[in-house]
């Protein structure tokens, strides 16, 4: 009997583990870009707070560019810009760089808000207790500021996690890209899209719920 060639094969359990791996890659690139980006963004926020003139004239407009240009354009732009300056970056690395800078730009204002949430009298009090500038920053401003802006930071982090879906444009196989691969093979778009949606929901929903809870507890 002639063996029949099966072009499209249906969705199997193995594909689920493929999607699971892709979800891990989504998590990995989000985790890296959020943590590095938050660190850099924190420094930018501090500079914005400390140096009004420099921050307003030089740093803010630059950060503004990252906030006013669609991420997808930034990704394609950087992916094609890197070879021009002699960098040889793959999809993951370019995506990571862009997402990190994007996170930093968003976190910078959050961080500045955090520093400014600590009232001036509080700062003066800690300084008059004999703390130097860095002690004041470390023991007074940081704990209070983080508390004040934690919910909006979580918002930024979740946003970046969801926006990391766009790195699929460059060919990094995260959840969305993996779903497209599977859709092409299985021809069952609805099922796979729902599974991928469930993955994203499972990643994002608990965090946003938890953050809302914390916000409620801290505000009361």
């Amino acid at each position: 009997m002639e063996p029949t060639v099966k072009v499209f094969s249906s969705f199997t359990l193995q594909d689920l583990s493929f999607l699971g791996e892709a979800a891990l890659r989504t998590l990995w690139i989000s985790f890296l870009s959020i943590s590095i980006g938050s660190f850099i963004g924190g420094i930018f926020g501090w500079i914005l707070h400390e140096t009004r003139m420099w921050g307003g004239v030089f740093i803010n407009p630059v950060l503004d560019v990252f906030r006013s240009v669609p991420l997808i354009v930034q990704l394609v732009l950087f992916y094609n810009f890197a070879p021009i300056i002699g960098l040889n970056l793959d999809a993951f690395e370019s995506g990571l760089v862009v997402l990190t800078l994007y996170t930093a730009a968003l976190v910078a204002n959050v961080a500045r808000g955090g520093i400014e949430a600590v009232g001036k009298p509080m700062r003066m009090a800690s300084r008059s207790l004999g703390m130097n500038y860095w002690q004041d920053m470390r023991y007074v401003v940081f704990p209070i500021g983080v508390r004040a802006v934690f919910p909006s930071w979580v918002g930024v982090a979740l946003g970046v996690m969801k926006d990391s879906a766009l790195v699929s444009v460059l060919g990094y196989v995260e959840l969305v890209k993996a779903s497209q691969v599977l859709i092409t093979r299985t021809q069952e778009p609805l099922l796979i899209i729902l599974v991928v949606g469930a993955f994203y929901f499972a990643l994002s929903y608990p965090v946003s719920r938890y953050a809302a809870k914390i916000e409620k507890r801290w505000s009361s």
Partner: protein
Amino acid sequence: MFDYNFHWRPVLKSLPDLLEAGLTTLQVASLAMLLGILIGLCLAVGRLKGNGLWYWLSTIWIELARNTPALFQLFFFGFGLGALGIHFSPYMIVLAGLSFNTAGYLGENFRGGFQAIPDTQLKAARSLGMNLWQAYTRILVPQVFRIVYYPMTNQFVWVVLMSSLGMLVGYRELTGETQFFASKTYRIFEYFAVTAVIYYLMVKIILGLSKLFASRYFRY
């Protein structure tokens, strides 16, 4: 290192087309925003006063819209529903996806706005002899509008930026058009650089106009 020629000619030649595509972007974003506001109001009311089905539908809508990537939502309307035999044009995919997403975010904003107005305001208006419609349009809505105005302008900027996802479902708004030209001429970097500038200017103009409006109407 920098032996790269930036080819101005192809970009300048298609600049009118790009600008026109920019108008398309604004158009689809405005329409999506309008739909988002209308649906978002229903969602907010559903969350606050809705009974049973209305409440749960609003809750599910809001949680889904906020906890999955916009790209995923576009793909759902694009490829997912295709499996059920519901085919949208690229324009409809973008419009549906953006409205769905925006309605979810605005719904939460509006809910916060409504909750910020004390109940006594409505009671006072009613006891002055206004009917419910008058009390809402003359007392409540102006106050809520003031609260949600800035989140709303931010959301509009997000919608403009998110509409760039149209490129991935084949809609030729600004990014889609750019992609079209870029793949025709292989000058990817040039086209996307110019597009980034156009987006930046569009966002700046939107924010400028919204500030102008605010300074005119929120004087007191």
